[in-house]
């Protein structure tokens, strides 16, 4: 992908919002994305998706007349977004282990 295109693509708040939605989902249809993004309408979301796809930030999959979008797993922006999400998730996984080990057994039985 062309990183300069990626920066232009990221300059827009709606496109960053689309990326944020996609970052927390495996894959979204165009309709699901439109309903998650309130500040602009469906047509605008479609044109933002086109910009993101051209920049190599997201991947598109077509099934019949439906289109599904996900973060492009090979782009540098996705690499770092995924890295950060794994770091944060890993940190909470460790919190869970520590908290549940510290909780008294009686508490755990009560759950």
């Amino acid at each position, binding site marked *: 992908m062309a*990183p*300069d295109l990626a*920066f232009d693509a*990221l*300059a827009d*708040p709606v496109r*960053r*919002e689309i*990326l*944020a939605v996609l*970052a*927390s989902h495996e894959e979204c249809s165009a309709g699901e994305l439109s309903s998650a993004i309130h500040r602009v309408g469906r047509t605008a979301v479609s044109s933002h998706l086109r910009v993101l796809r051209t920049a190599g930030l997201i991947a598109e999959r077509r099934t019949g007349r439906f289109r599904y979008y996900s973060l492009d797993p090979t782009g*540098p*922006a996705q*690499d*770092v*977004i995924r*890295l*950060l*999400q794994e*770091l*944060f*998730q*890993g*940190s*909470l*996984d*460790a*919190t*869970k282990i*520590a*908290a*549940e080990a*510290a*909780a008294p057994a009686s*508490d*755990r039985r*009560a*759950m």
Partner: protein
Amino acid sequence: MALALSAEQRIEAPPGAVFALFGAGSGAGWVFDAACDRVVAGAAVTLRAPMGGPSGQPVEMLGRISRVRPPGPGAGRIEIQLHMPWRGRLRVHLDVAGTGTRVRLIADLDDVGLQWLMRRRGHALPDEPHGDGHLVGLLTSKSGPGSVFATATESLAALAAQEINADGGIRGRRVRLIVGDDGTDPALGSVEARRLVRSGCRAILASTTSATFARVSDALAGDRVLLVQTLMNEGGLGGDLRVQLGERPYDQLRAAAGPMMREAGGRRWFLAGNDYVWPQAVHTAARRVLAEQGGRIVGEAFAPLGTRDFTPIVEAVSTSGADVVLSSFVGADLVAFERQCHAMGVRDRARSLALALDEPTRERVGDAAGAGMWGVSGYFEQLPTAANTAFLQRYRAASGAFAPPVSSISESVYEALHLYASAARRAGEDEPRTVARHLRCSSAEFPRGTVTVDGPETVSQQLFLAEATAGGFTVSPTLQRATAR
């Protein structure tokens, strides 16, 4: 708006128990293992993100807790304002979920942060396009041990640029800053300096260790680029296209050595510092100043930048019987060394003088370990002048209540950009040699007072001695104006 990244986990323990893990250092993950002296709004906090993988060096994320609500009957919240390596918010939400807790982390990531991460991960990014503006490079330390003293640097450079642009820019063109991160590593510093030059910068302000400055100066030997070191340094590299501002070790020591020996009630000194050119120059200057002022050196030690366990050096200090420790560590190393000195009882017997002790570093040393420490430089936040008060108001208005403190190190970048712009206006052209010639004879009123540049490495300014106290410093002017040479 920034990207908001989130992670979530359900934990079979009550919210209060999960909240109690935050800052307790109990192996509850790198976010909950945040290093902070207290979990209250205003406390400095460090998160060690394992970005280099399990074996690599973690990236230290520096910030300040901006909001805390312990989970009572309702939801718990901890909010952190991140300062380094990018600016943004990190929120921890603790909500009751059945008999347990739902924990969510929400982290903001702006364009600057995303770009920093992409470069850090080794992705080749295009050089920033040439703009219409007057491009000035800022080489700073957004990661590595130096990020501790650099927390306010970028904001203060931006503040100066904003003031210069409001005043017509440089001959009608706006000053545009392009920022490079040396990672407190000279090799990375020269790569980043090269990138700033490719982007079109013909002047670079370096607010880095002298190790990076020297390497960058070599790397740019064949380029027509003006390189300015803004912060305290040992000098020696000034020239046609090299200007070294800032305090000199000899001046700082001459101002502080006498008061330190009176304060400590003894004349025995232990010299300890990081193993690179500036601390070595500090030790050389100390031998001269202490010989002049009747001090005696009872021990000396060096440790590489990035050291985290200083036990052998702290033990050597203890057995030496020193009255004063001259501590020439920098950034996170200075924080770790001083905290270990305090923990191992050195404070009971000795005072510590650190030439690079500034506000953000003191804050991370903490109130308890900071007691008994002294710094000496040309600026401290507490300077009671009208110019400084107005300057701090402008900084707080732009950066918010939870912004990092200002220090001599970060304020020097604000000054250097103003001095540079003034020199470039007087030069009437962009040719770096001409601008450098005007920069070498400059004088201006700044928050620290009058600063006069009279040569490639000759700067005159008032020095102040400062004792670390809870929440800041107690500052007193020293007897002489230092003329760094």
